[in-house]
């Protein structure tokens, strides 16, 4: 593998914590934009969450949206600029709690956009509260005894949920806990963008990602948590692929 600087990334230091998955995922998205040669026609949305400063790291046009509203914003942009490449980058609170309505409806309308969904099972930016994807028994600052003791309900499985919608084209869940999975994640992201470029409709890649800071574990333990705990609740794989490739 040829390791060099990606054109689509700005050469700077990020604000992410050591062991955080966001940086890896940024890099993968950037590599895909480079390889597909679409950086200059790409418009991305930045979420509210730890990736809110996305525009400091990606070298493309970016609009920073209100918490959870990226799919609605991206809907309008893509409808008006169908020749451009439009993607959202969202955390689990952004996409599956406050923005669930926007997510479901953009997906079901079959908006021809790509959604990069970073599932780290926690609210990173606000300091580690429960997310819709927090595991049963997982501790957070609002579930100190572990999720499930105060009728929080089980974690929401977004790929499974969206796979029920006829309007959706492509759903895949991947992870960035180790090199093998990172390579698979890149493949999925590439496919998510290719679908859009070829006009196939709504694609979402859910990436299981590490948040050592708010999980209050070491980066190594965080990768292990993704590998063992998260994967058993959120099985990796393709949940929908309308073109069946």
């Amino acid at each position, binding site marked *: 593998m040829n390791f060099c600087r990606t054109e689509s990334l700005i050469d700077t230091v990020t604000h992410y914590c050591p062991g955080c998955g966001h940086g890896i995922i940024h890099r993968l998205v950037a590599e895909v934009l480079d390889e597909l040669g679409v950086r200059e026609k790409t418009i991305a949305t930045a979420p509210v969450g730890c990736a809110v400063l996305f*525009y400091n790291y990606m070298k493309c*046009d970016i609009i*920073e949206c209100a918490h959870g509203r990226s799919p609605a914003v991206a809907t309008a*942009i893509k*409808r008006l*600029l169908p020749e451009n490449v439009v993607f959202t980058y969202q955390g689990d609170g952004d996409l599956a709690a406050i923005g669930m309505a926007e997510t479901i409806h953009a997906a079901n309308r079959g908006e021809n956009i790509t959604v990069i969904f970073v599932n780290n099972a926690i609210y990173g930016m606000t300091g580690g509260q429960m997310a819709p994807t927090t595991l049963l028994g997982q501790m957070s600052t609002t579930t100190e005894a572990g999720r499930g003791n105060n009728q929080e309900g089980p974690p929401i499985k977004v790929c499974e949920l969206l796979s029920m919608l006829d309007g959706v084209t492509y759903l895949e869940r991947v992870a960035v806990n180790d090199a093998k999975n990172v390579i698979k994640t890149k493949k999925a992201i590439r496919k998510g963008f290719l679908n859009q470029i070829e006009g196939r409709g709504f694609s979402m890649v859910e990436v299981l990602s590490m948040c050592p800071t708010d999980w209050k574990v070491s980066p190594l333990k965080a990768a292990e948590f993704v590998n063992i705990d998260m994967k058993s609740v959120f099985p990796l794989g393709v949940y929908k692929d309308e073109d069946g490739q």
Partner: protein
Amino acid sequence: MSKVSKKVLLKGNEVMVEAALSAGCRFFAGYPITPQNEVPECMSRRMPEVGGVFVQAESEVAAINMIFGASATGTRCMTSSSSPGISLKQEGISYIAAGELPCVIANVQRGGPGLGNIRASQGDYFQAVKGGGHGDYKLIVLAPSTLPELYELTQNAFDYSDYYRNPVMILGDGILGQMAEPVELKEYKPIVTLPEKDWILDGCEGRDPRVIKTLYLYPSDSLAVHNAHLKKKYEQIASELELFEEYKTEDCELVIAAYGMTARIAKAAIRLARDKGMKVGLLRPISLWPLANSAFMRLAETAKKFLVVEMSNGQFIEDVRLATECSVPVEFFGYGGGWYPTPENILERIEKVYTL
């Protein structure tokens, strides 16, 4: 040579659609709510005919955020709703104002608070002119009182919003939206020289990437700098855009202050009062923000009294008191909850306060 414009009978809600499309609006997102349903319905038919995009959004929250995205591409865009839906849009409006994105938002007001009712109301005055969403921002708020004026102001609203890079609200009500009047569908002509949109997002080919954002974390005073920039813009708007109409104010002792539909009804009442020998006139602000403070002050110097008529329990009256600097007594005639006055109702009140 300009084309001959035709006069057609339309409902207020349809008038907004025709005006918007004539002004080059090419994106509309909305959600059904009475009494503005004809706007999305008509848009869904008409927008494809002019090559634009219509989206029925899943909520008013989604609709206003679609406007956030549409405006970022440089497309003229519009959303409409009625009171409860406008409440839901407040988050997005704050972001749009912060991001200085032009767009037009129509509020066909109904009775509130809560689900209220579906009759006309002016109960959203504070929400429209004082903010409504979070943070220090201002909307340009226009209040038409006839359908020809609604047509013209809707066209102008797109110009004001592009010119100042600021959202503009058309503040109507259920009567304005539902009534029908003959309207001349005049060809659109920009009323200002429109600035080039050198901030839009359309892919960074041949230029540096652009960012539209509303977060100002670093350096620590950058938000204060941005807010100071907005404040300066609002001051500029306030100094350039005070739209109002005066009716029979030359000699008047009593000034009726009213906007939108109530102003129109007040005109009929003033004619009745004049027939009875009472010197009554009307000051009708057309822009509610900015408000024509100088016109209020000028009339306060010669008239003895003001009478505010509004379809609420008293919101606009606070700004009338401020604009006249409490230099004259300000009487009130209004009810909240989906009430509207008849000319006779207003005349009765005029007779009471005139002799006091």
